[in-house]
């Protein structure tokens, strides 16, 4: 377990990258390394992992401390902009007693050692990373500190009890001597990991970094082009590849009409047929792309035994919405309390409305890619964007027949993800890259062009929701029913309905906190033809729009102010009452409008709430109408994730979630006609441009309740707040998204 024996693995283990090579070379000399990482760290960690090892206690698998005192942390979580690498540096650094600024954080390889979440999973999603691993990652830092203290005791020849630490140093106050962590890491290597129960964690009142706006560990590299994503990587002898996908998923290659001509095109190495695609391998990606787009393919209709979800030739997203709206059931109840039918039949006032949403794409700016290399010993190195390394490795093992330990999976930074990089069949380039690398006997990097990405991206689900509600004589809702005709992403990926309802189908309709005594939330499961996936905030991204907009309709019908109605319905919920009041205060006091702003525009405000992923959010939006379209001036958002690790990153995440929320509200939509997406690039699939961003004002409310998520929770309340404001301003109650389908006056 020392560095030199690990170094020979590096040329195979790492992509070529000069700055990184220098870095590794410098650490090879006299480095005091606790664990070395990819790919050998994985097997070492696995070897070190006793069957009884407690979660997140295998310090050597996670941490390397270098002679200069810098700390390399292999994080269980992928960094894709949400700031999790910085959060992990804060959490581990706090207990290790090392400044997060001294951390270099990279994604850990697959392996049981890195399963640190309390739910026993290892994914980066569901806004889970920090909230599910917080105590474990703190303890990891504390264990490493204990090892350094023990090493310090031996080196200084003093009892460990006489030692303490300052950031990056073990200190013997009595003698005034101290040693940097970098000087001690070699000796610490020989220390057994202490009993996890033996370490005490720092008093939160003494936190230096947790809870503070610590600077991101990746800010400089990402401002200077130094940050490397999957698409940027290169290994010796690598060829480039591009694909042309079948116009509809499930179609197969019948034949190539001009293969010889394409093979003769400049730079072309070879032409390949793949399941549902053709590929060109070339010395340059541009040559591969040009050549593959020149191939004339005879595509054949899917056969009955197709293993993928075949897209029908007549599929239209607009027609599919009508199809969903016509579904009568059967429906399965998720929530059913009180007597909805009775309340509806005896109600003084009944309200009914039908809502729907649109398909949307992920449209992350980094197009998917994968770099595959078979090594002389038959093992495989693969670099690819992913949110779940162990699941991807298992899938690759299944596809290739390789044992998992022969697959070295690397997880570079993600150029945005928003749910794009979970395991979706037929939606990622790595199976193709592996097949091509095998076929040509050289490493291959496959990049999907933006057009190919739009063709194979999985879509956020659509739903048609029929609401019915009853108001009492005071105009207060006494019953609400929502029946959603939809397919949730989890059951879509499984390909069938489960024994239990798919929680991602109804979340945001279910789980609302309003005190309405009679309620029924149900799903009509409708298996659709489009490949579906998770999109930032998942079911909440549509369902909170439906529910919170309909709730405003109930307020209007009952002659109640929508803010006051929410306060009333939350009167027994102090946490949400506080939150709702906080957003009102943040906005200068609840003011619905319409009113005339200083610039002469007529404006109004809307309010909405959502409680996804263990956190709670309240949003107020201010809108006006500009040339028939909605302009959102301000978004005020109060968010209560219980407690937080980094307020600056929370604020950035709220900004980002607001942007995506505005994008799906104002202009974003994946439209299918004749089984094909109308848009294959950003020209016809607009995403929120800077000109349509709102000013965002954030209030973090730390209630001290159980920690919730932060990447997704700020999103779902944006759409209903905007739509409610538009209804108040224009009198037009829009029950669908995006608003660009409508003209306002």
């Amino acid at each position: 377990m020392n560095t030199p024996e690990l170094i020979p693995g590096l040329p195979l283990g790492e992509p070529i990258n000069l700055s990184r090579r220098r870095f590794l070379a410098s650490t090879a000399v006299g480095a005091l390394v606790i664990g070395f990482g990819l790919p050998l760290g994985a097997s070492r960690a696995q070897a070190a992992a006793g069957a009884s090892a407690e979660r997140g206690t295998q310090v050597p698998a996670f941490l390397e401390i270098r002679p200069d005192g810098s700390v390399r942390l292999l994080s269980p979580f992928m960094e894709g902009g949400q700031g999790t690498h910085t959060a992990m540096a804060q959490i581990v650094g706090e207990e290790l007693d090392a400044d997060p600024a001294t951390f270099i954080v990279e994604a850990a390889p697959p392996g049981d050692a890195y399963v640190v979440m309390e739910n026993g999973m290892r994914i980066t999603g569901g806004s889970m990373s920090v909230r599910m691993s917080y105590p474990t990652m703190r303890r990891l830092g504390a264990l490493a500190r204990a090892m350094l203290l023990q090493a310090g005791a031996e080196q200084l020849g003093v009892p460990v009890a006489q030692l303490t630490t300052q950031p990056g140093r073990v200190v013997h106050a009595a003698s005034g001597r101290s040693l940097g962590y970098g000087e001690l890491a070699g000796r610490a290597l020989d220390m057994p990991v202490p009993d996890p129960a033996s370490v005490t964690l720092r008093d939160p009142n003494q936190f230096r970094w947790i809870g503070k706006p610590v600077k991101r560990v990746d800010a400089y590299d990402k401002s200077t082009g130094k940050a490397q994503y999957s698409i940027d990587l290169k290994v010796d002898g690598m060829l480039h590849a591009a694909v042309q996908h079948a116009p509809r998923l499930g179609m197969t290659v019948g034949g190539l009409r001009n293969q010889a001509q394409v093979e003769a095109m400049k730079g072309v190495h070879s032409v390949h047929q793949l399941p549902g695609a053709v590929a060109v391998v070339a010395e340059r990606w541009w040559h591969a792309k040009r050549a593959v787009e020149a191939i004339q393919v005879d595509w054949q209709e899917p056969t009955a035994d197709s293993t993928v979800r075949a897209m029908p030739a007549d599929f239209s997203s607009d027609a599919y919405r009508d199809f969903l709206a016509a579904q009568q059931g059967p429906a399965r109840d998720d929530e059913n309390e009180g007597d909805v039918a009775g309340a509806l039949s005896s109600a003084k006032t009944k309200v009914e409305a039908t809502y729907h949403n649109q398909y949307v794409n992920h449209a992350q700016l980094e197009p998917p890619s994968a770099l595959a290399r078979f090594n002389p010993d038959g093992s495989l190195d693969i670099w690819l964007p992913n949110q779940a390394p162990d699941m991807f490795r298992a899938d690759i093992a299944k596809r290739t027949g390789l044992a998992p330990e022969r697959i070295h999976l690397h997880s570079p930074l993600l150029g945005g993800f928003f749910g794009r990089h979970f395991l979706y069949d037929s939606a990622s380039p790595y199976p193709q890259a592996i097949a091509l690398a095998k076929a040509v006997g050289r490493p291959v990097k496959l990049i999907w062009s933006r057009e190919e990405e739009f063709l194979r991206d999985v879509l956020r689900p659509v739903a048609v929701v029929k609401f019915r509600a009853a108001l009492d004589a005071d105009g207060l809702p006494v019953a609400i029913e929502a029946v959603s005709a939809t397919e949730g992403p989890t059951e879509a990926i499984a390909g069938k309905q489960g024994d239990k309802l798919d929680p991602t189908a109804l979340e945001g309709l279910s789980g609302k906190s309003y005190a309405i005594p009679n309620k029924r939330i149900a799903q009509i499961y409708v298996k659709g033809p489009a490949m579906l996936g998770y999109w930032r905030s998942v079911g909440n991204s549509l369902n909170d729009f439906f529910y919170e907009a309909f709730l405003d309709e109930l307020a209007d019908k009952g002659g109640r102010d929508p803010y006051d109605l929410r306060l009333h319905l939350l009167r027994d919920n102090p946490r949400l009452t506080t939150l709702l009041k906080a957003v009102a205060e943040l906005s200068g006091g609840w003011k619905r409008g319409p009113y005339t702003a200083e610039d002469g525009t007529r404006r109004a405000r809307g309010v909405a709430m959502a409680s996804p992923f263990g956190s709670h959010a309240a949003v107020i939006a201010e809108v006006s109408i500009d040339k028939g379209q909605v302009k959102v001036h301000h978004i005020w958002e109060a968010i209560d994730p219980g407690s937080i690790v980094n307020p600056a990153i929370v604020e950035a995440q709220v900004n980002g979630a607001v942007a995506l929320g505005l994008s799906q509200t104002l202009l974003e939509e994946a439209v299918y006609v004749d089984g094909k997406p109308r848009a294959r690039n950003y020209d016809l699939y607009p995403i929120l441009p800077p000109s349509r961003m709102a000013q965002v004002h954030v209030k973090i409310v730390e209630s001290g309740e159980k920690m919730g998520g932060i990447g997704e929770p700020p999103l779902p309340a944006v759409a209903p707040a905007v739509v409610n404001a538009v209804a108040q301003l224009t009198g037009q109650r829009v029950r669908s998204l995006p608003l660009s389908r409508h003209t306002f006056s």
Partner: protein
Amino acid sequence: MELRINQKTYQVDADADTPLLWVIRDDLGLTGTKYGCGLAQCGACSVLVDGNVVRACVTPVAGVVGREVTTIEAIEADEVGKRVVSAWVEHQVAQCGYCQSGQVMAATALLKHTPAPTVEQIDAAMVNLCRCGTYNAIHAAVQDLATGKEHA
């Protein structure tokens, strides 16, 4: 053909109509300039050509022969670029970071031509897409640079 990129001269064997982006990334290995759309829609590939911001994904390489190309790799060698980078770090602009090379190039081009741009000029120049929604942070960073408020 002969290219001048980041004050260095390169001999490149590429077709005249190859987009500058792919010559920069694949022939020269300068991967800080990003591929996002290939259609001049997103701006992730923004570079400077004789100090003007262009979208390298639709710029034929032959068109920059005899001109000076600056990519993100050399941004800190430029006095204005260096200021932009520090403002980006100060404002913690980046999230996923994939578009930020292009954003930094666009801001640098703006400030080189217009050292103290108005809000309207900033809005007109800073049009690159960002899926993470860092627009407000970008605007705040450029605003600071425009008004000389940033920590130099």
